[in-house]
């Protein structure tokens, strides 16, 4: 039995080694070597000058994640309480933007946010504006929220449809008003969905380079842009790029373990 399951796992193992473990090791290798293959710390130690970019990336990704969560949470709850046929249609609408090309969607926002874009022209009709919207951090966050919102909605919705109405009614029956119904029952029960949603929005947000390039202009480089520059751009220094990737990975892992901590803590201690 054990042997059989091992044999079955073999193709997957090969896949993992070839496409996940090996590339990871290569990233580590390049991060600690210079162009001629000698061991060096300079790649990593030199990263300190990019600290502002790291901070900006984390901050913008965090803001986008929080906005996604705030928007998606009530929406997902409402979705999960609709009738089954309506749920399907609404889910479809949520997914609809994802059927379109990512680049195209982001380009669309470019033309809308531009100085002579759709939004400013609309405001112009009332004599307001024009507002400076494109090439700001706000635009980058907007792009992140717009693109990754479905990834927050889906895990939240999935967990919320499993929360029985009677649990919420039970809370109400025992004296819980709106606030306590949400904080003592709904939130703790939907926590796994929240952590999954946070991961699925935060990780792509922190490493994106398309959104920041298109909507953030040159002034709002994110860590993803920096890494891209090292591999495909003018700076072409894949040792430095690997070091950045490595640090980004550590940052992501740290953030994830933090959210997971939250998850397991509430399990143990109760909600009051």
């Amino acid at each position: 039995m054990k042997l059989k399951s091992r044999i079955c796992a073999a193709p997957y193992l090969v896949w993992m080694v070839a496409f996940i473990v090996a590339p990871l090791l290569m990233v580590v290798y390049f991060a600690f070597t210079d162009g001629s293959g000698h061991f060096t710390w300079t790649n990593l130690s030199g990263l300190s000058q990019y600290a502002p970019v790291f901070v900006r990336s984390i901050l913008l990704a965090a803001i986008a994640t929080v906005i996604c969560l705030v928007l998606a949470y009530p929406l997902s709850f409402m979705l999960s309480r609709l009738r089954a046929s309506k749920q399907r249609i609404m889910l479809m609408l949520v997914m609809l933007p994802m059927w379109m090309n990512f680049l195209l969607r982001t380009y669309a926002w470019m033309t809308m946010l531009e100085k002579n874009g759709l939004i400013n022209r609309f405001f112009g009709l009332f004599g307001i504006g024009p507002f400076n919207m494109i090439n700001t951090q706000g635009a980058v966050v907007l792009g992140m929220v717009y693109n990754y919102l479905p990834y927050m909605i889906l895990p939240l919705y999935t967990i919320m449809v499993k929360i029985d109405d009677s649990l919420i009614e039970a809370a109400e029956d025992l004296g819980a008003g709106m606030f306590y119904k949400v904080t003592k029952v709904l939130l703790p029960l939907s926590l796994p969905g929240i952590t999954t949603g946070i991961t699925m929005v935060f990780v792509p947000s922190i490493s994106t380079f398309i959104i920041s390039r298109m909507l953030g202009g040159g002034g709002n480089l994110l860590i993803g842009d920096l890494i891209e520059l090292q591999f495909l751009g003018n700076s072409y220094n894949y040792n430095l790029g690997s070091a950045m990737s490595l640090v980004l990975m550590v940052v992501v892992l740290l953030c994830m373990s933090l959210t997971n901590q939250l998850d397991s803590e509430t399990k143990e201690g109760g909600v009051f």
Partner: protein
Amino acid sequence: MENTIVALKDIVVDFDGEAVLTGLSLDIHDKEFVTLLGPSGCGKTTTLRVIGGFLEPKSGNVFFGGKDITHLPPYKRQVNTVFQKYALFPHLNVYENVAFGLRLRKVDEKELKTRVLEMLEMVGLHGFERRDPTTLSGGQQQRVAIARALVNHPKVLLLDEPLGALDLKLRKEMQTELKRIQQSLDITFIYVTHDQEEALTMSDTVVVMRGGQIQQIGTPVDIYNEPKNAYVADFIGESNILSGVMQRDFSVEFAGQEFTCVDKGFPKRALVDVVVRPEDIQVVPAIQGKLSGVVKNVIFKGVHYEIIVEQAGTLWKIHSTQSQRPGEIIGMNIGPDDIHIMNKMEG
């Protein structure tokens, strides 16, 4: 009535235009064990939800201790509910589940602990405080749900088919248990079930419902012995229901014979439903019976035999401790007290 605790007045509820309750009025007396009994879809759970506040009626009023609470949300009502599927909080252990309501009311920690432990003791779950409710058996979960509701000292406890998911033996045990709890706490229980035996066993008052309306309200004995119509008779216990004609006071004709009965006051030659309980038919030798028929089938039911007899095209159901041989011709007698006459149901 003076000691009415919950009163429903002309409650109308419909779901998407489909009428569920059609002008239902009901007074529930304090400290009584009241059962709403009826088949699924008769509106009994809906009635309970209206009392609990989970459903606002389209029209009509709900009174609690004389005060109109029609528009009061559930968390402000002095009632607690034991839900059909228990609805225990899976993220909390047994102790915290029971403590939930008290914590919301900011009861101080010492009193809270006493009350929770006391309640767990009462439902027989001493030592289960740290257990995860999802690891408990159905019967244990049920007890936690009851403790969670009762710990808040509600004036009225609503129970929505709480024993539906338990096996027969456990169900009987819990029935006795619930009755004991109700009597020792001296509060009102409003209990919803489709199981007539359960209703008869536990209740002080049974409310038989059908199609969103009340058919009969009464004590279990009254309901069983004096069903108001053939529907109630059929639903409560087993019955033989026949069409008959009232000849005059104290005399009814059915199954081709005239019988003496105890009913009077019907119009002359009124068409009526005649209900005879299977255990009220005496089996006698064919020659001595007022009616006689051929035994079609005999089923052993444990305490008694169920005998199906064909008499002039009508199938009679008889419960008897004496078995009969299929194919045999037997006689049947029915005493005047055992003939229940009721107005013919329309529809």
